[in-house]
């Protein structure tokens, strides 16, 4: 059956309600199994040896002593993971990141690994591995690394995207540019111009569950991998490629996942665990320590951004320009490119230009972190927008409303928008009681907008109807925060049955066709689309079976509220058949009833949010307190509103941590100084107020229920909203994130000096 994904404007019975999630009981009783909660008979403990140096050539590795230690079953180095990437540069980087080949490129880079009978033996074995390093000069700061004089991290890299091919290698891997119109002319029409430079420090996704997996390589060449991941199908592809296996021989089961936020979209330890298991001939469990999580996984880019915006006296922006430098770690990425695309996406601009530069540094490989790259760009742009509004003498909300993008606006990154929510979120903020609440001494209010694309992608779903009328839904998108509940609601809605009749599970890679990652806010968007399609296919069969039971034509059977109904006067006395009644008879009417769906979910609607916050600044110490916080975001349609609120609150809290506190601190030696939750402090319960949410529903025309992705946009505005609030409270513009007490104090003191 051809699937029609267009928004239908139907009235909902299940969607929009707030039932308890199907995986809930297991999670509150401790029974749910996460990455580290799974064990196999005869399992060994895997541990990874990591470089203590930021940049060093590996001259020699001697593993002989470790191999001789009693209880050690395998020791591997890069030699055990030969290069099978066949010219695929991105996969080669993944391979090199899993296990350094010729050079250690950051403090924490894996250089060898062992599998032993217990953790103590494995730890001892690591100490017996001898490595001779030749230290090389390193660079960890994004601006320093971009200079011509900086130590080169990879001398085979020449900046892409320049008009002329450069003659010298560089740490700048790529230049990208977006925009339209003529910014030079636009600035000429401006009455007011704001121009400023901003910096943001590197942060980690901070999921509470460290990476963990159990690999079991069998002597027949097949393997099983149990792992906490946001995308088990992608992990299968990558691991199979790196180990030289056929994908079908590797079965990957996704465990419950204890947070990912983009950080569990890359393989790190998994190919290593598989290689250890292959060599040892036994299952291997590999769990990262928290120190390893910080030093070797994650983090987001550190950035340095210049912004220039001009406007006329009436508040119309005439031109906007930004140059964005994003750190990628030691491997090429497209992080600045995404930042350059999102920077001005909230606004309707005639003249706009953004240029992004990807910069290599001796830090861990940058990974996605919730709406990756967008929060930093929004921080710079929304700070400048606030400042410009002030210069013109306009209210910051009114200034944004005047310039907000609308349906039909050509976005700064190219496409023309359909129906979008930036205007409505701003109007909602304007009339929100939070905006009128009085402020106390040393308190400031800030607001800011944010944008994120949302992805769709490849999705495959099975819906099986049991003979008792219960429905099992097998999806291939990992549930990172309640999507099994949302997808069960969608199945119940489409079939017209009770939520309690549906049980959703995440199927392993051998049980279902390929699915892209749960990233780009696609989980509920794409899998709900596939669920609707699968349910519609099942309904077709249910109607056929009902027709058989009644002995009438299938065209005379319609599906309404969970029942087959015979249509037309001639069938007047046939009554109706419930899903269950049809299912019970299925053995006699043609066998099992199921609906399958495979599709590429196109048309993920873009998403916008506007946040408001009040911050109190202690002018003596620079310490801050978040007094009040409000999130307004468009969800398209909130399938399970409680979990939508949860996404809004969680993103805001992460943004608050990033804005005020969190940062990677490197010493002069290029070593990470704060690889633990004590010194890398994420917000705790007593740091935050309640986080108010307001869900707007501007239907996505490309989804039957109007759903948009909701997972990521909530982290985009907080950096800027909080910076605007702190700037208002402290009376000085903050340009460096995080706004830790010393930075705020320094800014206040500099301002005092200056105004003397």
């Amino acid at each position, binding site marked *: 059956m051809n699937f029609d994904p267009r928004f239908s404007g139907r009235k909902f019975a299940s969607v929009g309600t707030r039932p308890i999630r199907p995986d809930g009981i297991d999670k509150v009783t401790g029974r*749910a199994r996460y990455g580290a909660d799974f064990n196999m008979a005869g399992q060994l403990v895997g541990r990874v040896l990591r470089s203590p140096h930021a940049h060093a050539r590996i001259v020699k590795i001697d593993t002989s002593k470790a191999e001789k230690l009693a209880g050690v079953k395998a020791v591997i180095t890069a030699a055990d993971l030969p290069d099978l990437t066949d010219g695929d540069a991105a996969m080669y980087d993944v391979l090199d990141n899993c296990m350094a080949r010729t050079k250690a490129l950051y403090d924490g880079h894996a250089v060898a690994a062992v599998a032993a009978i217990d953790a103590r033996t494995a730890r001892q074995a690591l100490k017996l591995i001898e490595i001779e390093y030749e230290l090389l000069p390193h660079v960890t700061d994004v601006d320093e690394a971009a200079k011509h004089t900086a130590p080169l991290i990879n001398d085979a890299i020449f900046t892409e995207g320049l008009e002329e091919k450069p003659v010298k290698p560089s740490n700048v891997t790529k230049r990208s540019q977006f925009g339209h119109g003529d910014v030079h002319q636009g600035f000429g029409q401006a009455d007011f111009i704001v121009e400023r430079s901003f910096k943001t420090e590197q942060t980690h996704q901070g999921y509470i569950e460290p990476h963990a997996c159990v690999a079991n390589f069998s002597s027949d060449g097949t393997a099983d991998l149990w792992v906490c991941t946001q995308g088990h199908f992608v992990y299968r592809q990558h691991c199979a490629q790196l180990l030289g296996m056929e994908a079908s021989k590797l079965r990957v089961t996704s465990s419950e996942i*204890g947070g990912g936020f983009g950080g569990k979209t890359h393989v790190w330890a998994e190919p290593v665990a598989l290689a250890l298991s292959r060599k040892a001939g036994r299952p291997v469990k590999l769990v990262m320590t928290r120190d390893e999580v910080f030093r070797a996984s994650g983090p987001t880019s550190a950035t340095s951004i210049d912004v220039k915006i001009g406007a006329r006296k009436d508040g119309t922006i005439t031109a906007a320009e930004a140059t964005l430098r994003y750190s990628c770690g030691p491997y090429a990425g497209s992080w600045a490119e995404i930042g350059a695309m999102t920077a001005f996406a909230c606004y309707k601009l005639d003249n706009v230009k953004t240029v992004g530069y990807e910069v290599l540094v001796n830090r861990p490989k940058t990974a996605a972190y919730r709406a990756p790259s967008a929060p930093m760009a929004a921080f710079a742009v929304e700070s400048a927008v606030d400042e410009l509004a002030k210069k013109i003498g306009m209210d910051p909300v009114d200034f944004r409303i005047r310039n907000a993008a609308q349906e039909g606006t050509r976005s700064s990154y190219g496409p023309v928008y359909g129906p979008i929510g930036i205007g409505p979120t701003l109007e909602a903020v304007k009339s929100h009681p939070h905006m009128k609440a009085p402020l106390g001494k040393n308190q400031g209010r800030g607001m800011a907008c944010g944008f994120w694309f949302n992805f769709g992608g490849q999705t495959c779903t099975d819906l099986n109807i049991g003979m008792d009328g219960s429905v099992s839904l097998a999806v291939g998108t990992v549930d990172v925060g309640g999507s099994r509940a949302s997808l069960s609601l969608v199945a119940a809605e489409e079939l017209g049955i009770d939520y309690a009749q549906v049980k959703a599970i995440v199927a392993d890679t051998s049980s279902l066709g390929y699915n892209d990652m749960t990233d780009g806010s696609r989980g509920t968007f794409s899998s709900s689309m596939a669920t609707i399609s699968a349910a519609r296919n099942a309904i077709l069969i249910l109607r056929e079976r009902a027709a058989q039971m009644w002995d009438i034509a299938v065209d005379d059977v319609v599906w309404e509220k969970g029942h087959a109904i015979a249509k037309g006067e001639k069938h007047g006395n046939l009554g109706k058949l419930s899903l269950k009644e049809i299912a019970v008879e299925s053995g006699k009417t043609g066998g099992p009833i199921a609906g399958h769906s495979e599709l590429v979910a196109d048309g993920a609607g873009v998403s916008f949010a506007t946040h408001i916050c009040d911050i109190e600044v202690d002018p003596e110490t620079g310490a801050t307190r978040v007094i009040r916080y409000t999130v307004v975001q468009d969800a398209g349609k909130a399938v399970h509103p409680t979990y939508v609120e949860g996404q809004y609150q969680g993103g805001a809290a992460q943004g608050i941590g990033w804005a005020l506190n969190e940062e990677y601190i490197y010493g002069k030696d290029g070593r990470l100084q704060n690889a633990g939750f004590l010194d890398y402090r994420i917000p705790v319960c007593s740091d935050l107020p309640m986080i108010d949410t307001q869900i707007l529903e501007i239907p996505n025309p490309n989804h039957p229920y109007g759903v948009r992705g909701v997972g990521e946009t909530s982290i985009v505005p907080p950096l800027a909203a909080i910076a605007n609030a702190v700037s208002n409270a402290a009376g000085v513009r903050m340009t460096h994130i995080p706004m830790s007490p010393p930075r705020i104090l320094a800014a206040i003191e500099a301002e005092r000096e200056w105004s003397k």
Partner: protein
Amino acid sequence: MAGIAVSTTINGDAVEYLCQPDETLLDVLRDRLGLTGAKEGCGTGDCGACSIILDDRLVCSCLVLGAEAEGRRVETIEGMAHGDTLHPLQQKFLEHAALQCGICTPGFLIAAKDLLAKNPDPTEEEIRFGLAGNLCRCTGYDKIVRAVQDAAIVMKGA
């Protein structure tokens, strides 16, 4: 290396095990006894995911040695529900969607149980400070605080 023989009580049951002198109680619970409800988020006492109650005191089990449980009473998340009847905190966490990924949930439930045992009628601020030793990266804590507030009301009525 010879192990240390330990006799203790876990969730009301007498339990005996052998452990190494440097082995944490968290490792014993998870790796020797199959009680994987307590999670290791850091191993350094900073995240609270491994929270348990030891003789009426809330502790991080990653900071307690397995040998220290000798002759004491250990309460873990696995002992919180009575049969298939959930503890009011567990029920309220579900109703308020106080968990997203759920990895922090066992630790929060244990910490909240300890908090309400000592202070049955806490203010929002007391809840926030009482749970400040437990990290959650998903929820922003809003729904966790509300679930604890709601559970406190139910428990007072009981």
